[in-house]
């Protein structure tokens, strides 16, 4: 199974290659595609919501449908769009950034992707099989237990499968970053994106299990008559809230830390200046990760925990603003005095800083428990989290698409189209969400499908909806940009932006399937910049002579294991309906998964070796005579 890179493949062979791939670069592309698809779906759900809320007493969608839209919008955006898009970048970039050939567990990398994808698919099938979940993305036990139909069951099972995929990938990245760094890359020479991905992966490792437990308890309560949340049988609904938010708060840091890391890569490149305060950035990231586990009850201030508990969590929440602020100041100090080139990624970075800070300060406002009693469940909260999510995470994703497109696809996204996208989306974003702060302060509750006229809310809701339309146009332009770039000429160059600092820019695109032909030697922070400025025109200094390269084999088993869980989920879903085939299907699905696991364990899978002649041939094929030095 060697020399895969050099042969021309037919359509069927290409499909099979992608179904069985364990290559981090291909998986990165697959995550990006899947994430973009779900981003578009969730964005469409939001557009429908905003159309419904454009005028008072609207009947564009029914109340029940509105509940399904708002639940799916939140669930899809956070779990099935943002996370996979960020994973896409982590997969594509991190092995290159640390000078490795792939991640620590390539097979598990593939398994993580397919579990995520099939869980996402399962959740979306709910639209066609009786209705989507409708208890909010937070699925509180009081409402969720009694939601009729199978919607919430789809939520529980779909997220359980998807979440398992995310957990697997999180563990994979931790091990990769710990063990597979190139020689000379100590922890304090790692790029910031690698650092934030390490902390993110640690958060995933610790935060997803409580979600798993919570979802399991909800599953057995709804489908197998357990009594965890039923107070008449001794249960307590607040247990769900605790478990959900013990997961949920670290979850938002899981989303935002990679975004911070991406901006920490983009800003130094386009300010042509080294990142300011590297050690403090690392320290701040670690502190945010740690504190992120100590603040979850700030989502529960109004549930009656008592003044002492509220005070403790309020103070801890305010404390997180400190390391976050450190990072913002460091970014500003990086730009200050630099020779700034305003490309599209830099535009997103410049838009990110004020937007995210605005979201952050409203967060600190809400951290004051007494004020939160007024703001909880109002549009003020909606405004806050959209400012940090869209202003922070979505801008990072859009900007990084432009930034990393050359490495991932050997093409560039159009700068002109990109600038149009940025401005239309950015203006639309502020239009929609800035105004919602005031709606919240005026008392409009969230998760309402309509409102009475003449309360002073009509104009602001209308403006908010216009903003949503602008954002939709921006996203359409981005998709157009992607399609146009597919048809553009390949770049075939190294260091597309000209000012690359870290290892991923040292390699000429298209990246060979084995990444660097010789493991690079890292001589400092910003290793590629160092080499460039020492006059090394040929890329990197290498740590080893050209030799045989050991690569992992492809495998169809991850897809089969994930299909097994998908099948099992159907069995579990229809069991409470008394369907006779439900339990057999459940067992069949589990048998497929366990069977595939046993098959995997029984074979030896030693990968394959790429011989020196093949390496030389691949390099010549990709880059012409002389290869990629």
């Amino acid at each position, binding site marked *: 199974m060697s020399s895969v890179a050099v042969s021309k493949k037919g359509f069927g062979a290409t499909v099979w290659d992608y179904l069985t791939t364990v290559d981090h670069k291909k998986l990165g592309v697959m995550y990006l595609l899947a994430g973009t698809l779900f981003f578009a779906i969730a964005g469409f759900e939001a557009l429908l919501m905003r159309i419904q809320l454009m005028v008072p007493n609207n009947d564009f969608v029914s109340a029940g449908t509105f509940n399904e839209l708002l639940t799916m919008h939140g669930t899809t955006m956070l779990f099935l769009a943002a996370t996979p898009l960020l994973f896409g970048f982590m997969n594509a970039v991190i092995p290159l950034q640390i000078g490795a050939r792939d991640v620590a567990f390539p097979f598990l990398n593939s398994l993580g992707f397919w579990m995520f994808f099939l869980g996402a698919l399962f959740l979306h099938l709910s639209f066609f099989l009786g209705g989507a979940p409708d208890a909010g993305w937070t699925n509180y036990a009081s409402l969720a237990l009694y939601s009729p139909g199978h919607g919430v069951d789809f939520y529980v099972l779909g997220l359980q499968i998807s979440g398992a995929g995310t*957990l697997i990938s999180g563990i994979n990245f931790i091990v990769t970053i*710990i063990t597979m760094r190139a020689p000379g890359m100590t922890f304090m020479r790692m790029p910031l994106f690698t650092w934030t991905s390490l902390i993110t992966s640690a958060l995933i490792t610790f935060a997803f299990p409580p979600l798993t437990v919570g979802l399991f308890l909800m599953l057995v309560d709804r489908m197998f008559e*357990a009594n965890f949340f039923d107070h008449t049988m001794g249960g307590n609904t607040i247990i769900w809230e605790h*478990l959900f938010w013990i997961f949920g708060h670290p979850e938002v840091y899981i989303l935002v830390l990679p975004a911070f890391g991406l901006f920490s890569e983009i800003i130094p490149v386009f300010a042509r200046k080294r990142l300011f305060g590297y050690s403090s950035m690392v320290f701040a990231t670690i502190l945010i990760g740690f504190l992120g586990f100590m603040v979850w009850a700030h989502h529960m201030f109004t549930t009656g925990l008592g003044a002492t508990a509220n005070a403790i969590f309020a103070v801890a929440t305010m404390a997180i603003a400190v390391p976050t602020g450190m990072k913002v100041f460091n970014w500003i100090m990086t730009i200050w005095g630099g020779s700034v080139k305003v490309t599209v990624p830099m535009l997103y970075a410049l838009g990110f800083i004020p937007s995210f800070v605005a979201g952050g300060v409203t967060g600190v406002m809400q951290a004051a428990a007494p004020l939160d009693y007024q703001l909880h469940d109002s549009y003020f909260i909606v405004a806050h989290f959209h400012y940090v999510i869209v202003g922070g995470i979505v801008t990072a994703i859009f900007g990084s698409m432009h930034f990393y497109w050359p490495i991932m696809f050997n093409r560039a996204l159009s700068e002109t189209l990109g600038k149009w996208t940025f401005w239309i989306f950015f203006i639309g974003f502020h239009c929609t969400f800035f105004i919602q702060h005031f709606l919240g302060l005026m008392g409009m509750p969230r998760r309402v499908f309509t409102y009475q006229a003449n309360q002073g809310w009509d104009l602001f809701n209308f403006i908010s909806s216009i903003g949503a339309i602008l954002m939709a146009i921006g996203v359409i332009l981005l998709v157009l940009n992607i399609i146009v770039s597919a048809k553009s000429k390949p770049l075939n160059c190294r260091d597309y932006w000209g000012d690359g600092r870290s290892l991923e820019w040292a390699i000429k695109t298209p990246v060979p399937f084995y990444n660097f032909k010789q493991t690079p030697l890292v001589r400092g922070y910003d290793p590629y910049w160092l080499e460039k400025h020492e006059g090394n025109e040929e890329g990197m200094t290498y740590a080893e002579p050209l030799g045989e390269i050991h690569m992992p084999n492809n495998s169809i088993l991850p897809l089969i294991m994930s299909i097994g869980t998908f099948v099992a989920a159907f069995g579990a879903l229809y069991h409470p309906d008394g369907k006779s085939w439900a339990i057999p299907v459940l067992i069949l699905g589990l048998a497929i998964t366990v069977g595939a696991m046993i098959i995997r364990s029984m074979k030896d899978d*030693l990968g394959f070796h790429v011989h020196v002649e093949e390496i030389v041939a691949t390099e010549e094929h990709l880059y012409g005579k002389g290869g990629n030095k």
Partner: protein
Amino acid sequence: MEHTKFTPQSWPDKPEQATMEGKNKFVGIWIFICSDITLFASVFATYLSLKDKGPAGMEYSAAELFELPLAFVMTMLLLTSSLTSVYAMYHMKNYNFKGVQIWMSITVLLGLGFLALEIYEFYHYVHDGFGYTQSAFSSAFFTLVGTHGLHVVIGLVWILCLIFRNAGRGLNLYNAPKYYAASIFWHFIDVVWVFIFTVVYLMGVLG
């Protein structure tokens, strides 16, 4: 690497960490255990908050239900199985494949004994009317102890698969990290049991 013929002298002293894949598996199983720590923490915490809670007038309580002698025997079985797996790893360091297989098999037998007693205990409770759906307390008890039991089953299947798959292959640098990872998982299962017998059975009996 699987074709390299080793002697006890050329066999590395830390065989599970002698290859890149081995190091990855070594770090990987530990990070996985970290995720399992928070999993069990969540289930434990849920149990603690729902202990003895049930519908009004419920006659079941921890103090009356749990039998200490049974818990003690189960603990001894699991603790001993932890020691036998350490002994298996000792043989692995000394390149004594037969020793590895024998002591891992004994570990499995002890684990099966533990499981048998646990199934007997559960059957006894269900027979008495204390089933999964009886109350919040029962749901929490069976979920916590059942999750641990499920981990025991997974551990046993894992070790059995290793014993059978490698029976014809012998010890090499490809399967050494696999045995090591399985033994770390098995120790973790014992660690969780220490908390279960303390918090569920001992503190349960105290009332």
